[in-house]
């Protein structure tokens, strides 16, 4: 990939709404992405390899559970800081952001919110540094948008549980040290189970041949009579609301993250349009290209403010799941459209790995599907405003 010349747009001076510390945190993440991610990411994606060497640095810049309290190894930051870190990581690559948001929102968050004190002390500090990598198993081969229909189950055997079933499409699965797995007990109640690598009967085959999120490893979790110590059940919350609480946090991160990809695509396309000469003029001087670029910055600006407001509401504990759905849906769609338009502005150059756009575009095809599909989020808004459930 050519040199990373990224400059973040801030058309409506949103920076003035951020604190000095927010900007310091964002600046550190931005510098880190330029130094550690941009030079290697194209190659990692071409080879479909997760770049393991970045894990330590990712932990150091706050990529793992920045809002987790200090006593558990986190940084105790607010939700806007978390969002800004996600924005910068996804500016680099959605796969890197995925690794980070799975670890933060889908692994550390449930252990922090639903776990026992011993579970928190055992796992959170190591997850915060990246010494442990975690994954989150909700989706199953036959249960995607409808996780409540899951068949993975635990049976009480007196001094332990037996876990059986399989999860699919699980980010970080192939090398995770710990998996937060959602399974039904005999009464059909969904429980959070901490499954550790090395437990007998637990395997994590990798999913190959993806055209999207190639720098993030995806795999299955297979449980064949896995003995689970009773201490490995998350005690403080159960039911579908438990995994959904994690998804709220992850979707919030995605809402910020995809602004990062949109900004990167816009920035690249704007620079290219000013430099590329056709018919004796920069293509930026043609109305059709200006329309694309002007619409991009308009959409980015709208998304920034929607998301900033969501961050303020989350800091105050007032953001609803439906608001998060709206924001995730809007922003992923916005970023995907911008990636597609930006790719066209670059003409043939847009399809090469010289530029990040095509990689972002392919990544976003996963992002628009995982953590609730584009359709499902619309139905959540629909249900919220009408009171009618249209997806069941």
């Amino acid at each position, binding site marked *: 990939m050519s040199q990373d010349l990224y400059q973040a747009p801030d058309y409506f001076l949103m920076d003035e709404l951020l604190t000095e510390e927010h900007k*310091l*945190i964002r*600046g550190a993440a931005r510098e880190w992405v330029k*130094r550690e991610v941009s030079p290697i990411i194209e190659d990692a994606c071409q080879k479909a390899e997760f770049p393991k060497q970045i894990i330590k640095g990712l932990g150091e*810049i*706050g990529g793992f559970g920045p809002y987790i309290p200090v006593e558990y190894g986190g940084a105790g930051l607010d939700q806007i800081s978390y969002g800004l870190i996600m924005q910068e990581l996804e500016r680099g690559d959605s796969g890197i952001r995925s690794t980070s948001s799975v670890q933060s929102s889908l692994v550390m968050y449930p252990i922090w919110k639903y776990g026992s004190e011993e579970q928190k002390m055992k796992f959170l500090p190591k997850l915060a540094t990246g010494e442990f990598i975690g994954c989150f198993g909700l989706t199953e081969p036959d249960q995607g948008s409808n996780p409540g229909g899951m068949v993975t189950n635990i049976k009480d055997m007196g001094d332990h549980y037996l876990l059986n079933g399989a999860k699919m499409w699980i980010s970080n699965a192939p090398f995770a040290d710990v998996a937060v797995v959602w399974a039904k007990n005999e009464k059909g109640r969904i429980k959070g189970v901490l499954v550790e690598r090395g437990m007998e009967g637990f395997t994590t085959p990798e999913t190959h041949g993806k055209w999207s999120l190639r720098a993030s490893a995806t795999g299955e979790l297979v449980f064949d009579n896995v003995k689970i110590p009773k201490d490995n059940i998350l005690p403080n919350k159960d039911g579908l609301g438990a995994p959904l609480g994690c998804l709220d946090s992850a979707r919030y991160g995605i809402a910020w993250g995809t602004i990062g990809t949109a900004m990167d695509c816009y920035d690249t396309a704007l620079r290219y349009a000013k430099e590329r000469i056709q018919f004796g003029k920069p293509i930026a001087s043609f109305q059709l290209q200006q329309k694309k670029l002007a619409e991009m910055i308009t959409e980015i600006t709208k998304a920034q403010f929607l998301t900033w407001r969501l961050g303020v509401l989350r800091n105050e504990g007032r953001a609803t799941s439906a608001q998060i759905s709206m924001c995730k849906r809007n922003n992923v769609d916005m970023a995907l459209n911008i990636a597609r338009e930006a790719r066209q502005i670059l003409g043939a150059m847009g399809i090469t790995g010289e530029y990040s756009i095509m990689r972002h575009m392919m990544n976003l095809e996963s992002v628009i599907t995982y953590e609730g599909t584009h359709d499902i989020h619309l139905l959540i808004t629909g249900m919220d405003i009408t009171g009618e459930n249209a997806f069941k």
Partner: protein
Amino acid sequence: MNIVVCISSVPDTTSKINFTENGSKFDSSGIQFVINPYDEFGLTKAMMLKEKAGGNVRVITVGDALVEPVMRKALAIGADSAIRINANPTDSYFTANEIAIYLKENPADLIIAGRESIDYNSGAVGGMIAEILNLPFVNACNGLEIDGNSAKLCREIEGGKENLSASLPLVIGGQKGLVEESDLRIPNMRGIMQARSKPLMVIEPSSDENLTSSESFEKPAEKSACKLVEIGNEAELVRLLQEEAKVI
């Protein structure tokens, strides 16, 4: 060892520079400020010296409240405390004099400035501080080893380098080579959190003396479009070089 690093807050190198008020004032709107790159090499070297031999690293700047984010970043990178002399510097002498007045009261074994700041480029502050404090000064310093009270230094000179020695206290004007670009540090989360509680002291300037004052700034003329000369038309190329570009 007691180290003071002089930090200048400068526009990011990718900034588009403009002037207002008839070219007399720098237009800071929309500009991102960063630690002067030469100072960042110095700060990193200071951190490494401290990690090796112990001691204390202070960062100092002359500037208004707008430069505080840059000082906070220096604290997040690892400096122990920061001092801001609350004034808009008017020339190199003003800056050097204010820093020297502070250092007289609060001495240091090693004072690291940058070889120049990348905004006004006068490259004079380090030398002036040394002169006012009557200390040795090595500019364009790209190598520094300290052993007890003596320092071995390297300095860039035209086409080569000079090896020097000096005793502490000492002032240097640092640059790349003191440390490499890959040594530069990105503040990590722990550093950012610790920076919250580190002192950033604001002191008022002692004088308003300056020795020069700038009248106005001019940007270089815009580059004109590239002219292509057909193959076989070398005579035209020579004519253009002679008559238009006036380079031969």
